[in-house]
């Protein structure tokens, strides 16, 4: 029996232990039911608008545009969402779905802590129990978010296995799910993992490009020439791309974390340095050695510090529809500072990777061109780490 469901070209699939198969089948059935249910969608829309502060603004960054001297730059302000990042879009959708399925407990992995905070938030709102797995290394890098999750009533479990970062948090959350399925939904934070997660998460994040399209048509009367976002697993990027995939005039640009450079081992740029593999439930591109051992990746950004990329991105890369570029720590930190100074907007260090690439390409584009950059999250959480990167010894 072959199951073509959940494939994006050769990518995707359901490479998970038998113990979890019925859980993902049940999830798929529930999702297929509720995604077309007017009541579910109305409830989610209300949560988006009233609770998460949607629609998020599409802001014309006039000073940034003038400073770079090229294409007109708009910022999609996902940083202004409740909890400070795009992660809340997916979490509200999944938490509502889990609740409809009769689940009472949410588990999640988190890298930078934004998805963990969003999950803890939704759990608090909906009266659900919440456990978040976070690499021990990341609990140190993002101590403030650990506190936020605890404040929201979640239990945060530091993961010490492997590299003690995002990939290990995913592994540990998967292990936890195999041991407790009945009452527990694994609220996966990105467009990755086994089918149906890449599709579910994409659909909930697609609100980003749906809004961008409406907003840019209102403001400019035409589609943008490029939309850009940072890519770890790729949820804000797929959300930014989705409603533009059919519009071939719109360039889709994903910005990966090159860490200290794609010619070093300290990188997390999956499309630029990885190869086809099978891990965390999916076939996609992964940073790995010649024997398929997953590489210990690195990026200054805890949210992009992941050795794989969602299967739909791998497919968009294969067919040449989207471009994936690598941005180093240094470039991202420069962009973090630059956007703060020019626009008074402190982006998440993850989002700063997209800003950094825009700083490279906008000046080469004509003034009649339009770029949209998704600012996936706010940068407050990163201030202490960036200060340390610059040699200022501040701790939260």
């Amino acid at each position, binding site marked *: *029996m*072959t*199951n073509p469901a959940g494939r994006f070209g050769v990518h995707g*699939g*359901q*490479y*998970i*232990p*038998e*113990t*979890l*198969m*019925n*859980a993902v089948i049940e999830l798929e059935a529930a999702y297929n039911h509720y995604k077309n249910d007017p009541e579910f969608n109305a409830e989610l829309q209300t949560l988006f608008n009233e609770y998460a502060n949607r629609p998020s603004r599409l802001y014309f960054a006039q000073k940034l545009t003038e400073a770079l001297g090229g294409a007109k730059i708009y910022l999609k302000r996902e940083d202004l969402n409740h909890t400070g990042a795009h992660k809340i879009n997916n979490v509200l959708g999944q938490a509502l779905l889990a609740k409809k399925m009769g689940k009472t407990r949410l588990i999640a992995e988190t890298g930078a802590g934004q998805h963990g905070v969003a999950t803890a938030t939704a759990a608090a709102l909906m009266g659900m129990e919440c456990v978040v797995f976070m690499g021990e290394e990341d609990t140190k890098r993002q101590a403030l978010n650990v506190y936020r999750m605890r404040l929201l009533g979640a239990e945060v479990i530091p993961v010490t*296995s*492997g590299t003690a970062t995002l*990939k*290990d948090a995913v*592994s540990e959350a*998967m*292990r936890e799910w*195999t*041991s*407790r*399925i009945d009452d527990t939904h694994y609220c996966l934070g990105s467009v990755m993992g086994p089918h149906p997660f890449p599709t579910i998460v994409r659909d909930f994040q697609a609100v980003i490009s749906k809004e961008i399209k409406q907003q840019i048509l209102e403001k400019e009367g035409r589609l943008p020439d490029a939309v850009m976002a940072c890519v770890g697993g790729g949820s804000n990027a797929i959300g930014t791309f989705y409603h533009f995939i059919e519009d071939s005039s719109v360039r889709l640009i994903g910005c990966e974390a090159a860490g200290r450079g794609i010619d070093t081992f300290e990188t997390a740029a999956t499309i630029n340095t990885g*190869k*086809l*593999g*099978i*891990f*965390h*439930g999916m076939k996609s591109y*992964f940073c*790995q050695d*010649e*024997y*398929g*051992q*997953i590489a210990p990746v690195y990026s200054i950004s805890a949210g992009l510090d992941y050795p794989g990329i969602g299967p739909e991105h791998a497919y968009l890369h294969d067919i040449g529809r989207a471009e994936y570029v690598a941005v180093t720590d240094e470039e991202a930190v420069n962009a973090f500072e630059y956007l703060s100074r020019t626009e008074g907007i402190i982006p998440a260090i993850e989002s700063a990777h997209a800003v950094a690439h825009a700083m490279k390409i906008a000046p080469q584009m004509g003034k009649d061109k339009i770029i949209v950059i998704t600012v996936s999250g706010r940068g407050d959480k990163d201030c202490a780490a960036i200060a340390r990167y610059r040699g200022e010894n501040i701790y939260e």
Partner: protein
Amino acid sequence: MNKIQDAFRNGKAFIPFITCGDPDLETTGKLVRAMAEAGADIIELGIPFSDPTAEGPTIQGANLRALSGGVTTDKIFDFVRTLKDVTVPLVFMTYANVVFSYGIKRFAAACAETGIAGLILPDVPHEEKEEFAPVFRAKGIDFISLIAPTSDQRIAEIAKDAEGFIYIVSSLGVTGVRSEIRTDLAAVTEQIRKYTDIPCAIGFGISTPEQAAKMAKIADGCIVGSAIVKQIAEHKTDSAEPVAAYVRSMKAAMQ
């Protein structure tokens, strides 16, 4: 009759698991011979993976030790070549990416050439097995299916297609010693029996002779990993003897 099913003819089968290269391949070789001598009916050899998502802390530790010792898939095939005189069937247990990155066909050919009888990939469920199983079947290697306490209505289709033996996962969660197994394994086995007569072995959480005896009443064999890996972690290069004694006690308890 195939080599794996043949191994279930000698009373209830005891199937120990060890990770290749934990702590080194020389010790793995000693362990294989000692366990075969002590009555193991099939031996499961783990090829270490950096991120073994189906394993608890004990076997995660074995994977880590083996990889830090520099073991690779090629070194493991070279090592298995030195075990040609071992008559007990050897079965590989590893993760999809280890096989995929090596090349599925190339991996199957190397298994056939080195005399590996079967393959277990815990992250390849029924839905994804077509990518792997036919390639191994063509080389006479069994692609072993797992059935979990949550499999329910999936049991029929998995069992109908099963090769070698069926690996019944005793309980929810990852590998590791458990003091108590609550799943109604007799019901699961009975369900499987409706669709196939190939042998069934129960694994996950079994460590004591009492548990093994209990499992032997329900199924055709039992699989023990973490309890053995713990001993290897403790006795390191001197683990062949204590592990052999353990295998003897488990095999005896099951008869």
